[in-house]
C-alpha cells in the first residue's frame, strides 16, 4: 500500500493487516474525551446488532486531541466486542485511531476516513460526530442500511431539533440548496451521514477541493451538494433528536458561517449548468421511524443579534453596497429603527440579500472572504427577526414558516438568475483619451 499524503504510514500498514471491511463507521474528533466513549460504545453496539456477520471497522480520525480522545476510542469497553489495538489482534470489529494529515478541520478528518474506506473496499460507510449525546445503536443501521440494502449512495440525517437549533441550516443553507438543486434534503449540514464506498472514492478524486473550506466546516454541505448535483441516489434517515456537546473548542460563528456559506456559493459556479434550469423542488425518500422526541431548550439573545445587525448597518454599508443593489441597501437601512421586541426582517428581503450575495460572490465584485463576513450581521438580523416572529409558535408552526421561506426561495429563483447573468456596468465608460 503506497503512501499518498492522506494516510500516515503506520495506519497504511495496519490497514494492510486488516485486509478488507464491508462496513466502516468513521468518527472525526478533536478533544472530545467527554463524549467519544459513549459514541464508540453505541456504534459498536449498533454494528454488532445490525451487521454481526459482516467485517466492520470503526475509524477514529483525530485532529491532535490533547485530552486523550484517541486513547478513549481504543480503550472504551464495548462489552463482548474486544478491542483490537493497532498492530495487535484481529476481531470482527476492528477499531483504528489515527491522526489525519492536511488542513486542520472536519473535512480533512473525513478525507482520511474516505481513504481508509477506499483501501479496505468498504461497501457502506457512515460518519457520526464525536460529541453526540443522543446517538443510539439504531443510527448505524439507519445510516448504513439504505446503502447496503437499497443501493443508496448518500444518506442524509433527519433530526428532531429545537425550533431555534440550526439557524444557518433553517434560514439559509436548506432553503438555498433546495431552491438550487430541487431536492428537499432537510439537513444538508447535519454532520452525520451514510454513504457508499463508491461515493467516498469519487470525492477523493478531487485533490484541489481538499485545500479549500471543504477541509473544514464546508465538508458537510459539499458532500450533500455533490451527492444531489451529481445525480447520486440520495435518501434521508430519521435519527430522532440531535443533542450534542455544546463545547466546541475553536469553533466560532464567523468561521462556521463563512466556510459553510462560502462552500455553497463556491459550488454554484461549477454546477451552474445543473441548477440554472431547475424549477421548484421534489421530496427525497425517507427511511426510519418518524418519532416525536423531546429536545433541549435553547436560549436566544435577540437584543444582541439586533445590536450586531445595527452595528453592521452603521459600519458595513459601503461594503454591502459593493455586492447588494441600492434598493436592497435602502430596505436594509429602513429596518434599523424598530426595537428588538418588534424587529422585522422580511423574508422577501432576506432572499434578495442571499441571491445578490451569491451573484456577487460569483462575479467577485468584492473580495469573497469580505463578502461572506459582511453577510454575518445580515444573517443575525434575519435570525433575530425570525425568533421574534415565531416566539409564540410551536415546532410544527416554525417548520411551516421554514417551508414558506423555502417556497419563496424557489419562486424568486428567476431573480437569482437575473442577478447572476447581469453584466455589472463598468463604473466608468468610454474609450482611451
Amino acid at each position, binding site marked *: 500500500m503506497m503512501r499518498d499524503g492522506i494516510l500516515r504510514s503506520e495506519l497504511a500498514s495496519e490497514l494492510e493487516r486488516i485486509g478488507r471491511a464491508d462496513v466502516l463507521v468513521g468518527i472525526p474528533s478533536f478533544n472530545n474525551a467527554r463524549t467519544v466513549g459513549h459514541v464508540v460504545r453505541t456504534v459498536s453496539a449498533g454494528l454488532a446488532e445490525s451487521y454481526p456477520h459482516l467485517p466492520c471497522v470503526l475509524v477514529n480520525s483525530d485532529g491532535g486531541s490533547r485530552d486523550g480522545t484517541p486513547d478513549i476510542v481504543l480503550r472504551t469497553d464495548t462489552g463482548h466486542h474486544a478491542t483490537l489495538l493497532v498492530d495487535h489482534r484481529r476481531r470482527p470489529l476492528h477499531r483504528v485511531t489515527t491522526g489525519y494529515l492536511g488542513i486542520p478541520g472536519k473535512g480533512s478528518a473525513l478525507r482520511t476516513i474516505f481513504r481508509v474506506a477506499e483501501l479496505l473496499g468498504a461497501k457502506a460507510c457512515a460518519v457520526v460526530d464525536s460529541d453526540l449525546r443522543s446517538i443510539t445503536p439504531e443510527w448505524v443501521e439507519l445510516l448504513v442500511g439504505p446503502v447496503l440494502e437499497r443501493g443508496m449512495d448518500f444518506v442524509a440525517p433527519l433530526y428532531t431539533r429545537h425550533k*431555534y*437549533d*440550526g*439557524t*444557518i*441550516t433553517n434560514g439559509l443553507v436548506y432553503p438555498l440548496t433546495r431552491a438550487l438543486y430541487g431536492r428537499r434534503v432537510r439537513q444538508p*449540514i447535519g*454532520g452525520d451521514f451514510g454513504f457508499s464506498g463508491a461515493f467516498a472514492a469519487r470525492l477523493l478524486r478531487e485533490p484541489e477541493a481538499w485545500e479549500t473550506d471543504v477541509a473544514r*466546516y464546508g465538508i*458537510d454541505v459539499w458532500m450533500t451538494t455533490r451527492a444531489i448535483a451529481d445525480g447520486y441516489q440520495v435518501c434521508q434517515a430519521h435519527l430522532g433528536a440531535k443533542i*450534542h456537546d*455544546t*463545547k*466546541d473548542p475553536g*469553533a*466560532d*460563528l*464567523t468561521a*462556521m*458561517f463563512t466556510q*459553510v456559506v462560502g462552500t455553497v456559493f463556491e459550488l454554484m459556479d461549477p454546477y451552474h449548468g445543473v441548477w440554472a434550469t431547475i424549477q421548484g423542488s421534489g421530496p427525497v425518500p425517507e427511511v426510519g421511524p418518524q418519532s416525536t422526541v423531546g429536545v433541549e*431548550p*435553547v*436560549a*436566544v*439573545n*435577540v437584543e*444582541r*443579534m439586533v*445590536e*450586531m445587525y445595527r*452595528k*453592521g448597518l*452603521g*459600519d*458595513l454599508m459601503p*461594503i454591502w453596497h*459593493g455586492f447588494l443593489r441600492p434598493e436592497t441597501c435602502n430596505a436594509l437601512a429602513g429596518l434599523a429603527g424598530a426595537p428588538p421586541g418588534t424587529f422585522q426582517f422580511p423574508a422577501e428581503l432576506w432572499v434578495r440579500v442571499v441571491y445578490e450575495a451569491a451573484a456577487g460572490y460569483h462575479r*467577485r*465584485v*468584492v*473580495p469573497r*472572504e*469580505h463578502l461572506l*463576513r*459582511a453577510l*454575518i*450581521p445580515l444573517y*443575525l438580523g434575519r*435570525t433575530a427577526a425570525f425568533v421574534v416572529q415565531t416566539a409564540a409558535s410551536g415546532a410544527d408552526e416554525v417548520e411551516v414558516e421554514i417551508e414558506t421561506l423555502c417556497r419563496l426561495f424557489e419562486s424568486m429563483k428567476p431573480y437569482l438568475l437575473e442577478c447572476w447573468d447581469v453584466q*455589472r456596468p*463598468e*463604473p*466608468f*465608460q*468610454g*474609450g*482611451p*483619451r
Partner: protein
Amino acid sequence: MDTNFWNDAVLEPLRRFADLALAFLLNNFLAMLVVLCVGLLMAYLFRVMLSVFLRIVHFDRFCERRGVAAALRAAGVARSPSRAAARLGYWFVMFVFLMFSLAALNIAPVNDLVSRFFLFLPQVFAALLILLLGYLAAVFLQRATLLTAVNAGVARARALATTVQVLVLLFTIAVALEQVGIGGSIILATFTVAFGAVGLAAALAFGHAARDLAKTVLEREMTSTRDEGLGGISHV
C-alpha cells in the same frame, strides 16, 4: 588694418559661431526634434495599447473592488482608473523620450543629467510599486479589520480599521521615500519612535484602564462555549 581687425576680431568668430550653430541646429537639434516626434508617436501608441489591455483585464472593476477607484475619485481624478493609468503611461513614455531628446543635443551637463535620470529610474519604479502595493494592502486590511471588529462586536470598529489603514499607509510612504533616498535614517528613526510610543501608550492605557477587561476576555476565551452572547443557538 581696421578692416583686418574687424574681420579677424568680430566677423570671423561670428562666422565660426554661425557655422557651429548651424551645424548644431542641423545635426543635434534636428535629431532632438525627431526623437521628440517619435516619442509623441510611441507615447500615443503606448497609451492606446495600455488602455485596451487594461480594459480587457477589467482593470476598472479590479480598482473598484479594491477601493482604488474610490480613492481616485476622492482625490479629484474624474477619469476611470484605466484611463488615468493609460495617461500616466503616456506621460511616462513622453518623459523618457524627452530625456533621450536632451541626450541627442550632446551637451555635457545635459548628458550627465540624463544618465543620472536613467540610473535613478529603477528606484522610482520600485518606490511607485511599493506605494501601489502598500495602498492596496492598506485598503484590504482596513476592510478586514472592520469586518472582524464588527463581527466581534468591538466598539468603534471603524476607528480601529481606519487606524490600521493609516498606519499601513504611513509605513508604505516611509519605505517608498527611503527607496528613492529621501531622508532614509530620519524617517526610520521617526517611525521607530512613533510606533514605540504608540505601543507603549497602548500598553500603559490597557494596563491601567482595561486590566479587568483583559482578564475577562482571556477567561472567556479559555472557557467559553461557542457563540456566547448570542444565546444558546447552534447555528449549524
